[in-house]
């Protein structure tokens, strides 16, 4: 089992490194196309938005607690709070909601 674990971790490390390194190493010229440059600039927002929705709704023990956590994250982000306070406040909201929903024995 130890050998299996070690090999699988190696496989994961390799297929994680390749997409990170290849374009960075191989693309050595500035991209001329205005469309492609705009596309690459818009990419981060598009990726984060698509990663968050709808996955956020199934990231906790109930859709209700996830929804409340999401609203808390949106409100505090809008008010200008930083990454960590937003993450902690949102987690706290989820914890409280699930406590009300399921009680201690969850």
């Amino acid at each position, binding site marked *: 089992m130890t050998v299996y674990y070690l090999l699988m971790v190696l496989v*994961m490390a390799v297929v*994680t490194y390749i997409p990170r390194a290849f374009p960075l190493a191989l693309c050595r010229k500035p991209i001329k196309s205005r469309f492609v440059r705009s596309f690459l600039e818009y*990419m981060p927002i*598009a990726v984060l938005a698509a990663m*968050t929705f709808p996955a956020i709704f199934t990231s906790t023990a109930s859709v209700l607690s996830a929804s409340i956590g999401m609203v808390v*994250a949106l409100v505090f982000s809008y008010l200008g709070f930083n990454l960590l306070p937003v993450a902690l406040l949102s987690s706290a909201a989820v914890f409280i909601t699930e406590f009300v929903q399921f009680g201690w024995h969850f």
Partner: protein
Amino acid sequence: MKESRSKRFWDGFRYGAPIMLGYAPVSFAFAVGAVGSGLPWWVVILISMTNFTSAGQQAGAGLMVANSAWYEIGATVFVVNIRYMLMSLSLSQRMLQLPLTKKLLLANGVTDEIYYLAMKKDGLTGWFFAGLSAGPYLGWVGGTVLGALAGAILPASIASALGIALYAMFIAIVVPEIKKSHPALFVCMTAIALSVMLAYLPGLSLIPSSWSLIIAAVGAAALGAWLFPMDGEEAAV
């Protein structure tokens, strides 16, 4: 004249400190979950040290628990990580001056959040990027170590509450941007609409979620670039 290496490194480190603090609870939650589902603690820590990514290693760890074959694990993790190719490509435009060996070393730091902050930095340098990714790496591995050790004793309620931390961080990154820029708001809403459609519409929902992510992101960014092309060398996002 250029600033010294260590000045650039520590500037980057300070710039990335919020991500370091933000990553720790996320990798903590990952480790609690992975140890809880049966992986040995040292495997969980090794995964975080060598992968340094959330979605991909979560998928890989799940498959390892199920004793999947190496090619299944390899293919799934690769598909989840395809988005890094787009990030790596856009970062290459800011690092054209760097030698190959430095690029190969720095490539380890390409994560969603580090990439995001790196793209916002004017005059990005290699040492700045090294500092920018060093803190989050320590936060990621440190959170994993604590999570792997706490995994056995932590109640499920806290593990569940931490499950949302990653997404809350994504929201905290995106909201300030879409407040400032209408095209960014448009791209964000389009990506959400596409992603939700791909997840729930009959037929489309058969597409594996890692592929839907790429389709939604590429579609939204392409539509944004077509409707709102940016002027000049620098972009606002």
